[in-house]
């Protein structure tokens, strides 16, 4: 066996001077500015949403006016003169006054009728649409919250790994199904099921389009969201709390309901709020299954129209691009945006502000 060469006798291999770092620094700053550019896109998106919605909504509130074809002077309409022929103040040309929209009437009105009838009969009261949205959301939450909460408790506290293997993937598949599929499901399965003669004595007559079936479909859509968010919240409760309760002789029911759920309450409430915000913005299901008659009602068997449903109707319809009804889409979108933003914001605040801090 040859003795290994003593490496310490050799001089260190000579290295040249270090590579200049200037190129590296330049590259570093170029890359960083590119990254900043990408990151700032999110701010630009928010800005764009706000600017577009509010500028176009402002157009909507200023749409009740006529430009005189003779002298190009603008005459504004009002509730009293809508639908009448008014002579132009400058040249006397007869002008037909269009419907008038006021911000106050929009935010407090309960009638929504921008398309049909005479100009003076057109109404823009957003509560007719908000009530539709609220009813669909209410049905959806009444369906998704209990089911999602119990499913999450089961997954987090009870489930045997084998049942988990079935349950978790099916929830994931449910979460991955496109919303238009749920809309189709509501229309072709849920509504006929609700109209079954066996249920008629209990539920009464259902319209082909109704808020209940749309709400149930939205609830199915929200079920995986609620259950996975709530499960995350329950999992975040430290094991030591569970052990403490078990050590006192608590049953699994006691541990889940009296210790884990209260400890995870902030996370659960935040999950609920996020789910509500999701239902409020849900579009395809209500466009397919809820109908298109905006009116203030509390009967879930009736057809109704939500804010998103109205937006779809406007986008599909052949209303001219500068018509009052078309511009109302932007005002409704602005209301929708503010509602969901508030819900998301409150949800995040609840989660971060009110969570328990453990040692």
């Amino acid at each position, binding site marked *: 066996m040859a003795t290994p060469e003593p490496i310490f006798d050799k001089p260190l291999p000579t290295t040249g001077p270090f590579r200049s770092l200037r190129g590296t620094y330049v590259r570093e700053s170029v890359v960083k500015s590119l990254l900043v550019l990408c990151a700032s896109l999110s*701010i630009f998106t928010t800005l764009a949403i706000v600017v577009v919605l509010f500028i176009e909504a402002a157009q909507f509130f200023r749409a009740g006016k006529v430009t005189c074809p003779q002298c190009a002077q603008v005459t504004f309409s009002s509730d009293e003169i809508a639908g009448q022929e008014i002579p132009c103040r400058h040249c006397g040309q007869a002008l037909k006054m269009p419907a008038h929209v006021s911000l106050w009437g929009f935010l407090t009105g309960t009638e929504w009728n921008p398309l049909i009838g005479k100009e003076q009969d057109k109404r823009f009261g957003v509560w007719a649409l908000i009530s539709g949205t609220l009813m669909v959301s209410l049905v959806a939450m009444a369906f998704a919250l209990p089911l999602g909460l119990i499913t999450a408790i089961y997954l987090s506290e009870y489930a045997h790994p084998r049942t988990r293997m079935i349950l978790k993937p099916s929830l994931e598949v449910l979460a991955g199904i496109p919303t238009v599929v749920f809309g189709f499901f509501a229309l072709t399965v849920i509504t006929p099921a609700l109209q079954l003669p066996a249920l008629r004595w209990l539920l009464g007559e259902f319209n082909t389009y109704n808020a209940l079936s749309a709400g149930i479909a939205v609830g199915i859509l929200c079920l995986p969201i609620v259950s996975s968010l709530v499960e995350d919240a329950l999992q975040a409760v430290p094991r030591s709390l569970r052990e403490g309760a078990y050590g006192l002789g608590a049953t699994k029911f006691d541990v889940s309901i009296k210790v884990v759920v209260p400890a995870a309450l902030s996370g659960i409430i935040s999950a609920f709020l996020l789910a509500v915000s999701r239902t409020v913005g849900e579009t395809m299901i209500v466009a397919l299954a809820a109908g298109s008659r905006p009116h203030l009602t509390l009967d879930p068997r009736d057809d109704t129209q939500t804010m*998103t449903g109205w937006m779809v109707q406007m986008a599909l319809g052949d209303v001219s691009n500068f018509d009052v009804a078309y511009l109302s889409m*932007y005002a409704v979108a602005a209301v929708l945006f503010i509602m969901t933003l508030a819900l998301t914001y409150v949800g995040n605040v609840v989660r971060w502000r009110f969570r328990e801090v453990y040692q």
Partner: protein
Amino acid sequence: MSALMPADQRQHPLLEIARRTRVRDRRWTDAAFRWFCIATALCSVLILAVLLASIFVQGYGRLSWHFLQHYPEPDPRWAGIGPALWGTVWVCCVCGLFALPIGVATAVFLEEFPPQRWWTRRLHNFIQLNISNLAGVPSVVYGILGLTLFVSMAHLAGTPQQPFWEIGVRYYDQFWSLGDRAVLVPVSDPQAPPTLAHAGLHAQNFDGQRIDVTVVKSRRDAPQAPDQLQYTLIEGRPAGRISKSSWYHMRIPLGRSVLAAALTLMLVILPIVIIASQEALRSVPSSLREAGLGIGATPWQVVRTVTLPAAIPGMMTGSILAMSRAIGEAAPILIMAGAVFISTSPGSLVDEVTVMPLQIYDWASRPQVEFHQLAATGILVLLAVLLVFNSLAVFIRQRTQKPLS
């Protein structure tokens, strides 16, 4: 209270209280709640089964190659989903090309370049808050944004019909000759009124070859020879305006096009991509980063060589989820493009487009049962595409997964 009970009381008060109280038997509650939970949890499995079964039953009968290739004819017996399928492929590919790099870059910026000064810290927090809020914005609102920002570009410059700037398209006036052949006359200004047939037209045939045109006063004056007749026009007849676009056709504003749809969907899925990528980056142990920084690498070098490769599998999963969302998303494209009848697959970025969820909506919203069956078949195709896509993701993830530490 303390007067009742001296501090040195040694006896546990329960011994005495227990005489007055009953012990709760909670075993029943526990068992009942367990079964209640199981029943409730299995509801979701049941719902999924009913959903898939009902769609399969309704849609299976119409599934065929013809359905995949054909365009959505008004007659439900022959209608297909071809243009929508290709539209989905186009839109989602373009959307991914934009959303994934931008999303990953944003996540890298937020996670790997920690803020140094107070105002950059503010900026970081603001962007972070902003992204979580954007994730909660309904997709219809993005549709409205896309409609204003991309389709018409806020009416600032031109309209989709009369674009402000356009490249990769040529307009022609098309005459129909007496010999049943198309005669094309190139047009320089697409807004000009259609030309009328007159002598001395610079005409060409459909293959672009220069041809000599004979113009006659009336059909009676037409030449008899068939090779002359095929390029004979009657004077004064108006032409039809057609356009031939190449694959690089581009214009401003974008109109109801592939690019506008893709950019709108990009806005929808960007928050999802960013949040998923951030989580993937956070799961890379910081010891790896420190090792890189410790040998004198710059932050970007560490990201490029250490963090990003380690985070790729996690990012893949999130990106696939986001792309699945894009494939299934209908609302923003519906707001943006409306449900228009489109019979051809897109050939360039500014061609009009429809996507599968939109086509399904179109069929589902009609009252006839035949169209509902078409919608169900379309859903089967859509779900199959999603399934293929997701299994691809699982496959890639398993191939690239390796221990990090």
